[in-house]
């Protein structure tokens, strides 16, 4: 017994000596582990699905700026580094774990990927979709799966107008605002406009944009008529015949909601054939192309950014911070898809934390977040967003339009003559669909 006690004593002494000797080595390793243990999240992370074009034609101008924006917003939110009112970490203290999914591929493929995100990956919420077609296809599936989904960019007004939705939100105003803003700006520049033409892509976004622009023009300038109405296929790339048709129409103004390569190709092709000398071009999504094309865009071209984003954004602390971190990381200025993504994530954070506050700071259930999201108001980097229409699921905000000018002295693209229109001036009221509002002559629009 004595011998055994003696052995045990010896083992204890040896162990203590070894531990003491190893302390200087173990400390640097142990400290971070202890620190990690101390800073380990008190609440489980929120898994966030992020769907945007990572490949394909829409990746460059839309998908990648959206992804980049999500990357920095999530990183900064997790670190609690976003300026007020978003300075708290994560979503009510829960760190955000992103899972990016490529939006490229067929609409059917997107529905499958959406189900995978919800049912296989178990994400808590999804922020995503550039394509209007994908938004229309995913919305009913989100309802079926009771999956909180925030559309970040797609523009078709039909999402909440065709059927009320519970789990789907869009913190980005839809295309009606773009086209009402464009019509108001066009008529400010050309008050006596007698006729106009349009060239828009032949799918949901292009058709809705053109329909809304024509309806807004009809309301604001009833005598103006349509000269040419062209709807080439998406990603056509070659617009020789369309440009000839516009040249022969000789309209004072040509409206286009083109984006991506189609927009750039169209600008170059029509420029080479002198169309801008006959007609002022109005590009409702033109901001994404202006830095790439620079001087190839004629001065005076009317440019929209689907909101008061990018160069048209106000000089607020949140906007200054957003532009700075984006430019520091990606060496380029954020264009409107980056703003759309940022404001969608901030909208989700606002709703999440409102729901958490209602539960005394505890993590909310998804249904609590859904309830909190409805009708919420929050600050985006470029404007205040009010979830004011679509039963509180569709955001409205101000919009700005301006005229392009290439600053030869500094060699950079600029927007001048910027006019900002209030949200209630360019968005339908809560009790009307876009089409009904436009056809009725935009009753209740408050523009001052």
């Amino acid at each position, binding site marked *: 017994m004595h011998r055994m006690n003696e052995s045990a004593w010896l083992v204890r002494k040896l162990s203590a000596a070894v531990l003491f000797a190893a302390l200087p080595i173990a400390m640097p390793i142990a400290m971070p582990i202890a620190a990690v243990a101390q800073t380990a999240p008190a609440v489980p992370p929120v898994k966030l699905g992020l769907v945007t074009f*990572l490949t394909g034609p829409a*990746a460059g*101008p839309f998908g990648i700026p959206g992804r980049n924006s999500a990357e920095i917003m999530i990183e900064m939110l997790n670190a609690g580094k976003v300026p007020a009112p978003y300075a708290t970490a994560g979503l009510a203290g829960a760190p955000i774990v992103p899972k990016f999914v490529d939006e490229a591929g067929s609409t059917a493929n997107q529905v499958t990927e959406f189900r995978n995100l919800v049912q296989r990956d178990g994400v808590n919420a999804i922020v995503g979709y550039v394509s209007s077609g994908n938004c229309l296809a995913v919305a009913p599936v989100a309802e079926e799966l009771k999956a909180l989904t925030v559309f970040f960019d797609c523009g078709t007004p039909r999402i909440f107008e065709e059927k009320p939705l519970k789990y789907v939100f869009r913190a980005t105003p839809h295309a009606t605002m773009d086209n009402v803003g464009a019509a108001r700006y066009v008529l400010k520049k050309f008050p006596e406009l007698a006729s106009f033409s349009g060239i828009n892509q032949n799918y949901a976004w292009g058709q809705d944009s053109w329909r809304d622009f024509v309806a807004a023009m009809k309301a604001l300038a009833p005598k103006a008529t349509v000269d040419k109405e062209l709807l080439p296929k998406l990603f056509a790339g070659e617009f020789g015949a*369309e440009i000839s048709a516009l040249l*022969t129409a000789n309209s004072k103004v040509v409206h286009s909601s083109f984006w991506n390569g189609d*927009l750039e190709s169209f600008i170059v092709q029509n420029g080479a054939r*002198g169309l801008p000398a006959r007609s002022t071009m109005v590009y409702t999504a033109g901001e994404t192309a202006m830095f790439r094309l620079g001087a190839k865009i004629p001065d005076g071209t009317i440019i929209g950014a689907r909101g008061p984003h990018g160069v048209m954004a106000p000089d607020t602390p949140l906007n200054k911070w957003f532009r700075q971190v984006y430019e520091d990381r990606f060496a380029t200025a954020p264009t409107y898809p980056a703003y759309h993504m940022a404001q969608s994530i901030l909208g989700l954070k606002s709703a999440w934390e409102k729901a958490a506050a209602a539960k005394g700071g505890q993590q909310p259930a998804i249904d609590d977040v859904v309830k909190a999201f409805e009708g919420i108001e929050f600050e985006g980097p470029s404007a205040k967003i009010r979830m004011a229409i679509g039963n509180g699921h569709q955001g409205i905000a101000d919009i700005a339009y301006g005229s392009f000018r290439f600053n030869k002295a500094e060699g950079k693209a600029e927007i001048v003559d910027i006019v900002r229109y209030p949200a209630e001036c360019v968005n339908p009221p809560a009790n009307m669909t876009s089409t009904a509002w436009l056809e009725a002559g935009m009753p209740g629009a408050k523009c001052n």
Partner: protein
Amino acid sequence: MITVIAIVTDGLVYAAWLFVVAIGLTLIFGVMKILNVAHGAFYAFGAYAAATAIGLYFDRGWPVVGGYLAVATAAIAIGLVMGYILERVFLRRVYGKDEVVVVLITYALFLILEDVLILIWGTDGRSAYQPYVEAGSFIVGGLPLSVYDIGLVGFAGLLAIAASYTIKKTTFGRLLTAVIYDRETAAAFGVDVSQIYTVTFLVGAVLGALGGALTAPKISVTPGLGVEVIVLAFAVVAIGGMGSMEGALVGALIVGLFRAGAVHLIPQLELFSIYAVMALVLVFRPQGLFSRAQPRKI
């Protein structure tokens, strides 16, 4: 009058582009009986290679005229390299196999090459507008036309003449015709069919890449542009008759003029017009307008 001028010129420009794209496809099918879906990849790689070459060339401030040479050189180089690799490594192994197998292989190659393209050039679009813009424009009947576009019509015309001359007047053309009609008999008479196949595939690949390269200065070169083109090229080849050069020319002209007419007169039918023409032709001529009589083997 201006509308007629516009329909004719726009139709010819579109037809020229379609012909340049489709002639390589129809040549490969005519000789090798391969429905080459990977032709869309030749087109896309040609466009990217040209956009890169134009960027490198014009960034140095060199004379504009050399830029057109850069486009042609890039297309020929990329077509030869890709054509050689595809023919030697993949297609050579499946000659004589069921046509469906060959279509599946070229389709698989097309999909793989789409991803290779993104690996090389990334997802951002590329623009190389200088050759198009620098060429300038001129006015016909009040309608400004692009010199580059009209140049494309001229190039397509020369290509059609060169193709016709090569097939009818040269030794290689006669050998080609022999292989087209009966590969086994041609081989029995000492024609090196394997070599004819390689040369044909390389020429087809270069023409596909050239189609993309000539389009690059007009468009924003983005991933996925090969998909759009291959469908149109197949429509043209189907109208003209699979494997017929004259058919590709006439098919391109019909599609080009119908499409231009639709854009100017009934724009709502633009998308429908191309496939309506194809359906109409195939109702009366299921083998296409210029399909060859098939020799019956005994």
